[in-house]
């Protein structure tokens, strides 16, 4: 049985395939236990988790909060507008203060790439990266790959196509690392302004012609197009984006029947994906949300130093 030795989960780039598998297996154990009716676990009882969301987010915060509650941890939520960060306190000082309250785990969402590593090096408590700038969003990538493994039974050898705003996407970067480390083939598709060729050095293919890529895809993962980028001249209009890179009904027809359609949300219906495609049987968008819970439980559980062999045990306290 491989073991987990890290106090932090900062990025997928620093993990090896065994560590990724352990996270996925641990998440699978939690999901299985849940389907057997064991939703609540004791493992983090008496521990304090702080959701420090310097960049606002609702769904990721709620997912971490629920994951922590399922593990019986005490949870405190801090957002930028409710914290001293708005009064000019540095991130280091805020975190030191949180640690002084004997927090065991800090879940950090931050606009600045590298902020979780910055904290992890200065704090003895665990730091979980819940998204940092355009750098990394490890639990999102893990839940994506968890969903793929669950639906298709494997990851190695699959062809995964990631479409859209890759340049500004931490989800894409973390997905690329996870998929490559587990032996998948990755193709990025999008406008040359948002999918520069420099990504090829990570070991992926970069393509511009979506139609030619779709027939061999086992998974397509669509990234949200951020409207505000338009002002910065990365592409001429949402209409043109949709015409070139949107997963329309016609395009979706080119996909193999068993191809999964994924999206980290929130969806721009009619921009990167047609409504009907998003709601079709091949779409696993809501599975992703559900699996996010098990994956985040696994991340908290392992970083808190718990033993994966114990998860199967039923929760007698309840």
């Amino acid at each position, binding site marked *: 049985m491989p073991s987990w030795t890290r106090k932090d989960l900062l990025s997928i*780039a620093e993990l090896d395939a065994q560590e990724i598998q352990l996270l996925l297996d641990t998440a699978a154990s939690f999901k299985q236990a849940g389907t057997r009716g064991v939703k609540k676990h004791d493992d983090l009882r008496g521990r304090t988790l702080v959701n420090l969301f310097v960049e606002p987010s609702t769904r990721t915060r709620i997912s971490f909060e629920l994951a922590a509650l399922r593990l019986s941890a005490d949870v405190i939520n801090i957002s930028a507008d409710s914290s001293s960060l708005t009064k000019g306190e*540095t*991130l*280091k000082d805020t975190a030191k203060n949180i640690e002084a309250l004997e927090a065991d785990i800090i879940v950090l969402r*931050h*606009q*600045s*790439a*590298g*902020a979780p*590593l*910055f904290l992890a090096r200065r704090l003895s408590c665990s730091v979980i990266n819940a998204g*940092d*700038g*355009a*750098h*990394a969003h490890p639990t999102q990538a893990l839940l994506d790959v968890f969903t793929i493994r669950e639906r298709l039974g494997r990851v190695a050898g699959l062809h995964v196509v990631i479409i859209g705003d890759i340049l*500004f996407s*931490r989800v894409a*970067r973390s997905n690329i690392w996870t998929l490559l480390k587990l032996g998948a083939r990755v193709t990025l598709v999008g406008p040359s302004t948002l999918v*520069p060729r*420099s*990504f090829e*050095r*990570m070991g992926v293919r970069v393509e511009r012609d979506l139609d030619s890529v779709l027939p061999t895809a086992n998974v397509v993962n669509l990234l949200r197009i951020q409207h505000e980028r338009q002002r910065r001249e990365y592409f001429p209009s949402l209409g043109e984006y949709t015409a070139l890179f949107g997963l329309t009904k016609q395009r979706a027809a080119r996909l193999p029947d068993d191809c999964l359609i994924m999206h980290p949300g929130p969806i721009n219906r009619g921009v990167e994906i047609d409504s009907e495609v998003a709601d079709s049987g091949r779409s696993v968008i809501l599975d992703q949300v559900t699996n996010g819970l098990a994956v985040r439980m696994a991340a908290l559980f392992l970083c808190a130093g718990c033993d994966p062999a114990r998860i199967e045990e039923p929760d007698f306290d309840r």
Partner: protein
Amino acid sequence: MNRPVSQCSLSTRPGNVLIRGGRVIDPAAGRDAIGDVFIQNGIFAAVPENLPPDTEIINASGLVVCPGFIDMHVHLREPGQSAKETIDSGTTAAAAGGFTSVVAMPNTSPPADSASVVAWVLDRAAAKAKVNVFTSGAISLGLKGEELAPIGSLAKAGVAALTDDGNCIQNHELMRRAVEYARMFSLPVFDHCQDYSLVGDGIVNEGYWSTVLGLPGWPAAGEELVVLRNILLAELCEHHIHCQHLSCKGSVERLREAHRRGVPISGELCPHHIALTDDSVSSFDTRFKMNPPLRTEADVEALIEGVADGTISILASDHAPHTRAEKEVEFDRAPFGITGLETEVGLFFKILVHERKAISLPRFVALFTSEPARLLRLDRGTLIEGAPGDVTLFAPDLEWEFNRDASLSLSKNTPFHRWQLKGRAVRTIVKGQTVWSL
């Protein structure tokens, strides 16, 4: 119009000193031989039959006796930012790095865009400075790139150069007029070459590492474009523009081509741009955050080649002290810049002379003495009789480890902590007075 004299200040009194038996290298005078150097009352003089009674005698055998080293790109941070550095601490660090003269950049608070700020800096230096402090004046008011600073007044106040360093004038017309106007006073114009629209919010070299780390990329083309602009303006205005801290291959190639046509333009290199590459930022350590950013191996090669063939004629530190609290923040929120006065000579000499053999020892000395003196039109950077008696005693083979805790700068924001260096100034003499020795 005659150029007003560049003023410099320092707080030490002139002395008499005889430096004996060293290898004397004075590139401006074509001198490279074992010999003696004498300074009388702070000025180089012929060795007299009878030494004045208060003459200090220094045995320099085994050492290289050089004209005092000049660093023309230093942020002393006064007035207004004395938590980072002061004229006192900055010039102490300069002395420890082997420098007898520095040119202070004008991006202080308030900036040196008026004669009164320049006068204040020179006054302060007269009270506190351990080495000669020359000043530079802003090109534009408030370093904003919108309207010209009072360049004539700045010239009269004694600035040695004009620059908006840290900022880059984007309006080509304004830059053109600034260069034309500066020509009246024979003042060189230094430029921090950065095209704002192309660079945007870029903070690290645009390439593999910016891609992997998700940090905004700073494309090399954003520097090269302004180097090219400056070449065209130097040619148009027939006046010297100096391109500061060049970081990329394209800039070197543009300069080389311009030199073939005789364009009055020069280029400068900082040690970090050849000692480090952009993979250093992979740990989001803000000690590797500087502007322009660290670039690739290919850029390092081109920069070294540029020094070797003379395309780059100025070595400087871009000494940019920041407090720990300022630097110990998220990567994108940290200020750009590192300290450099104390590591510069050891880094450059180790890389350029010992490791890469790109230049000879005499050329190395020229890059720190006669070249900046010529560009700035200073009466120093040489050991000839009558020149100010500034000397750097240099030990070319001395291997040493730099420790930031021993740094004399107020700030410790250096990526070179515990680096092994080779070549070191062991004594710094300003106007005949030893201001620092190992």
